[in-house]
């Protein structure tokens, strides 16, 4: 039987999604449905003096109006920060309360104040206009780099500082810098982004008064996490009385990992009014209240020798957390950012110091790549600048500092198990025709265009992750993953996974793995996920972890199935267990024609009695049934890496940047389904290029979100991209039996510096993201002036 792992298998989930039969949360409507509309703060920072709902409750169709006072009265807990970070001085991070409905103060435009529940959405929305909130408006803190110098948003949090974190050794770095021939310095802004999954967030909670159980449909990447938080922290219902279902989910990119206020409120309200409560965000609400991404202000320095050898690195970053510490808000700019900021290089000494600040903006949390794009942008901008200042080829300086021995102990945290960075960059240069660039540059020049080339080599730590490590670093949960493989008596298989697909294609890739492991045709395997009442607890999908952690759990569970199968086959074939081999779905006895298919074994396991002539196939003491569960906790992170090369053409008259060529060569270890992996790379690149050239979240000085619609927030569209050229190298991961490393975030991590390095190469001067036409035009004007003055 041909192996499915490595094949371009068309996706099993596509038919339903292509024919309009997908079922997303907004598509779920219960009998006696009610509709929720949230009253949100129009101010970035204000005290709530009074909330008057007297008119709203009397409005047509209104069922209930709930406010922050009801939250307090019902003792509903606040939203949580999931990762505890300590400052350099050993003190704990400072976290303000984050109630699902505010009763004392509002801290960003879009913050939740009240909810109106009505018979129809129109009625809920109309009545929401009648909720009168009396605010005392306060001066908002908006800018990342001014937060520590501004008014304190929360009285117990001086300088709006959540923590001042250090990773690395300042003294060793100083020593290294003292020895340097040259110190390269940069100041960077990592622009704030709005994730913009195409499916707006939604929740629909149904309460069954008979069983006292709440069923919550929600747009989640992680329904199990939603359940435990809404139970254990918000206290809406005990875990065994709360079922969370994340049906088809229309993209997440990090923004749907954890529950938001709306899920908590809908669940709580459904129980209160004993009717189902549905909320679907409109796009404006998505812009205002989905967690945003990135938003760093960084000063970094690289100490080098004249021959290009790196000696040391320092990174001083201010990270904007927004108004509250979100679930992964504190780990993103620390452990996901700091260690990777030294890049893919041998770096004798390094430190990352991150000050995380509160501002009156939407909370910032993980967004595709989470911390690693910011890290890679920092180091790869520095390395490119170092090459320029030392007069070296940017490829050469990278090659010189790559590690070539694996495992490679990276400077700050990670032990990188495998990689071939030299081979990856060489392949990228080949695919990109690096040598032919000068000719292409001349061709562009003859058309009046400035052509530039940019490189980036990256590594990332993903497949999160080993529970003992992450918990030691402050994570409030373990990050293992579960799988349950259930043979049905007739021989087909249901695989339950604790991870969750919202576009990644688990139904297919996970089925490919199980099909290979069990020798069962892929069409007889069903992957089940997204429902806390089906299958064991799990940790969902983010951090490129599904395959390396969740996929491995499936392999382990399949191993247990095969182990039991061998025992049963031995009994049935009347041989000893050690004589039985399992291959391609059959239990065979070597040098004989004795065999049993796995289907026969499964059937036998479910009929263990003696029936006429048929004797019980189960060995003594073996339980009936064929179902196995595995909880897999990896021993290490996984470390995808790669080199990307991009070429741009700039029109100096307008400043418009056209991306003309993009090459990505990545090492994701073993690839299960190239079709799916290529799609993941394309998507990541589009988001990374979006950050470099197009996207920017903009708050004005009063904290109003200016980019709150597609009229003002630039979403990359089909005509913004060329066809990307992809290549792969493969050094299998050693930390999981599949050898996989994860591929979901790579594009978003590598693309921003790749593109920016190309733009800066084209125009000959530094520029910040996004490289919009106006910024580039101004830079070109400046260069023109400087050049003419020099001449």
């Amino acid at each position: 039987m041909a192996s499915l792992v490595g094949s371009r298998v068309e996706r099993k989930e596509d038919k339903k999604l292509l024919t309009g039969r997908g079922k997303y949360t907004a598509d779920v409507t219960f009998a006696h449905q009610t509709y929720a509309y949230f009253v949100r703060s129009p101010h970035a920072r204000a005290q709530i003096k009074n909330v008057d709902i007297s008119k709203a409750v009397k409005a047509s169709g209104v069922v209930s109006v709930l406010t922050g006072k009801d939250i307090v009265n019902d003792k509903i807990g606040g939203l949580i920060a999931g990762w505890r970070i300590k400052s350099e001085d050993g003190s704990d991070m400072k976290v303000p309360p984050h109630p699902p409905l505010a009763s004392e103060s509002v801290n960003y435009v879009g913050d939740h104040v009240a909810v109106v529940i009505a018979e129809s959405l129109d009625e809920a929305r109309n009545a929401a206009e009648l909720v009168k909130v009396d605010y005392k408006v306060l001066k908002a803190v908006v800018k990342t780099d001014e937060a520590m110098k501004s008014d304190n948003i929360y009285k117990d949090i001086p300088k709006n500082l959540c923590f001042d974190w250090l990773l690395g050794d300042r003294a060793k770095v100083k020593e290294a810098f003292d020895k340097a021939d040259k110190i390269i310095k940069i100041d960077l802004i990592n622009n704030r982004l709005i994730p913009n999954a195409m499916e707006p967030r939604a929740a629909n909670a149904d309460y069954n008064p008979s069983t006292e159980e709440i069923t919550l449909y929600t747009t989640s990447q992680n329904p199990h996490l939603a359940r435990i938080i809404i139970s254990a922290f918000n206290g809406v219902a005990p875990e065994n009385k709360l079922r969370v279902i994340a049906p088809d989910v229309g993209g997440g990119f990090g923004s749907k990992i954890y529950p938001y206020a709306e899920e908590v409120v809908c669940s709580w309200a459904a129980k209160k009014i004993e009717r189902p409560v549905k909320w679907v965000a409109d796009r404006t609400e998505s812009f205002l209240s989905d967690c945003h991404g990135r938003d760093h202000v960084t000063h970094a320095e690289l100490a080098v020798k004249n021959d290009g050898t790196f000696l040391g690195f320092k990174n001083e970053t201010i990270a904007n957390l927004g108004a509250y510490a979100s679930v992964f808000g504190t780990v993103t700019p620390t452990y996901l950012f700091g260690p990777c900021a030294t890049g893919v290089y041998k770096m004798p000494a390094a430190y990352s110091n991150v000050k995380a600040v509160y501002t009156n903006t939407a909370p910032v949390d993980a967004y595709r790549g989470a911390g690693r794009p910011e890290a890679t942008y920092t180091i790869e901008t520095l390395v490119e600048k170092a090459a320029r200042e030392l007069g070296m080829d940017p490829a050469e300086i990278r090659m010189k500092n790559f590690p070539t021995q694996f495992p490679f102990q990276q400077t700050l945290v990670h032990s990188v198990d495998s990689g071939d960075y030299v081979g990856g960059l060489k392949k990228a240069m080949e695919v990109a025709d690096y040598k032919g660039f000068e000719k292409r540059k001349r061709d562009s020049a003859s058309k009046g265009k400035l052509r530039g080339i940019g490189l980036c080599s990256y590594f990332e730590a993903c497949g999160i992750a080993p529970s003992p490590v992450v918990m030691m670093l402050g994570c409030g949960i373990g990050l293992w993953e579960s799988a349950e493989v259930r043979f049905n008596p007739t021989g087909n298989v249901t695989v339950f996974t604790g991870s969750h697909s919202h576009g990644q294609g688990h139904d297919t890739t996970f089925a490919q793995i199980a099909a290979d492991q069990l020798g069962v045709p892929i069409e007889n395997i069903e992957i089940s996920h997204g429902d806390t009442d089906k299958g064991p607890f799990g940790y969902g999908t983010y951090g490129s972890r599904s395959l390396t952690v969740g996929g491995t759990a499936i392999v382990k569970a399949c191993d247990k199935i095969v182990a039991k199968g061998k025992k049963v086959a031995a009994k049935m074939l009347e041989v000893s267990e050690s004589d039985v081999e399992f291959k391609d779905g059959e239990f065979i006895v070597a040098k004989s024609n004795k065999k049993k298919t796995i289907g026969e074994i499964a059937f036998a396991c479910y009929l263990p009695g003696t029936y006429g002539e048929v004797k019980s196939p189960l060995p003594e003491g073996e339980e009936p049934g064929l179902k196995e569960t595995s909880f897999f906790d990896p021993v290490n992170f996984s470390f995808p890496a790669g080199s990307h090369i991009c070429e741009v053409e700039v029109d100096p008259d307008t400043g418009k940047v056209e991306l003309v060529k993009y090459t990505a060569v990545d090492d994701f270890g073993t690839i299960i389904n190239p079709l799916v992996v290529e799609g993941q790379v394309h998507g990541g690149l589009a988001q990374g290029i979006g950050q470099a050239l197009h996207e920017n979240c903009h708050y004005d000085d009063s904290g109003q979100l200016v980019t709150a619609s597609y009229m003002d927030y630039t979403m990359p569209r089909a005509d913004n991209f060329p066809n990307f050229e992809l290549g792969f190298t493969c050094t299998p991961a050693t930390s999981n039996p599949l050898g996989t490393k994860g591929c979901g975030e790579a594009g978003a991590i590598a693309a921003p510096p790749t593109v920016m390095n190309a733009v800066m190469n084209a125009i000959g001067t530094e520029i910040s993201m996004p490289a919009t036409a106006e910024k580039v035009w101004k830079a070109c004007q400046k260069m023109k002036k400087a050049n003419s003055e020099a001449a």
Partner: protein
Amino acid sequence: MTKVSLEVNGKKVVKEIPDHTTLSVFLREILNLTGTHVGCDTSQCGACVVHVDGKSIKSCTALAADLNGSKITTIEGLVSNGKMHPMQEAFKKTHGLQCGFCTPGMVMSAIDLLNNKKNPSDKEIRDWLEGNICRCTGYQNIIAAVKEAATKM
């Protein structure tokens, strides 16, 4: 309230609806045709694209009352005799979708393109799809899907 009479996916539909009912609400809430998605509700993202009398439009920005007498085709109506439309097949073959949320609008828009132009170039496809935002695929495999479908339609 207004009475509208439409042909939706080949079936005649007569309903009494509030005057401000948009076509997307009509399809989703009244006919339970939830394959048409609403991503922005202000005609920028294209998730809600359907065909009205053979032409693609954004259903969130059309009043159902205004379309009285029209023939509407939604993503659900493309399947005939249990077989997917060549455009749907092509999206599957080339992995032109990931989360699937923008997909119905993308497919409906792409079919309209091929109805207007038989063998569009990459650039023509990218330009045409200007009104359809996808956050997952980076568009590359969508372009491939449209080209693949062009050989079959």
